[in-house]
């Protein structure tokens, strides 16, 4: 284990993790606040997903210690996973189209 990982588990580590936890709570509160701000659905979705990705990154980097592991682990796991998740979005144009298709079939 690297010295950075040892530091993360050392005496000073916990206060840092508490700060990350505080950030996650504040971001959650921001999400709930945004929900009632009467934004357009697209803007809201964009903001909520953006905040959620930041929260996920904080959890992976600090709580799951990926930041303190060797970079090779990050490079093996995360880019491929993100690629697969992003590729799922290619389905979406069809979800807009399907309502028109349904009318034609009727």
């Amino acid at each position: 284990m690297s010295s950075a990982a040892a530091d993360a588990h050392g005496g000073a580590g916990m206060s840092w993790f508490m700060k990350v936890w505080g950030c996650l709570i504040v971001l959650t509160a921001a999400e709930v606040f945004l929900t009632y701000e009467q934004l357009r659905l697209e803007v809201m979705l964009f903001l909520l997903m953006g905040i959620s990705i930041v929260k996920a990154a904080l959890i992976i980097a600090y709580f799951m210690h990926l930041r303190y592991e060797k970079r090779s682990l990050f490079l093996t796991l995360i880019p491929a996973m993100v690629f697969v998740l992003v590729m799922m979005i290619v389905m979406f144009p069809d979800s807009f189209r399907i309502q028109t298709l349904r009318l034609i079939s009727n």
Partner: protein
Amino acid sequence: MSESDVTINESSWSGGALPYAISSKKLGMWLFIVADSITFGAMLVAYAYLRVASPDWPVPFKFNPSIINATVMTLVLLSSSITMVAAVQAAKEGRIGACVKWMGATMLGGVLFDILHIREWLGLIHEGVRLFQNPWGSPLFGASFFSLTGLHMTHVTLGVIYLATVAIGFGRKKFSADDVEISGLYWHFVDLVWMFIFPLVYLISARVH
């Protein structure tokens, strides 16, 4: 001999060395997490697809009780993650009693999350939501809502059982601090998934008026 050592040090990928410098168990958990995030990703995409494709998708979640309940659930899960971090830290420092206590607190968070979630489910069922029908609109709402949140609740429940097993084993010195850390990875992942379900299922479907 020394020459081959130099070669190994030059590149993590040259073979003969651990390229990730972690145990196989931990790598196994990471690979499971990647696979499981793709499962949840597919479920969320399917939910979003159905929602976009259905003009009468219901937005049934009132601020009180649903959004408040889901926000409290989020806070409970986030707090159970920080107690898990404390458990891992205690395990690394060899403080067995403290580790088991923190893991107990984490499990308590998981159980509380489940109780709040079941309360939410019962509320919706009481309002007439079923797998393929509801009083408001697209009948697929129930199917996607219950399968998505149900899969997550199953993960939380299995996580509590997993943590209990590891905590007992660590208390009896059968499991190592590494095992505690690996169970922590799983728990944080369950927390992470909820960070997407909460906005995409609840907040986007909040009844604002």
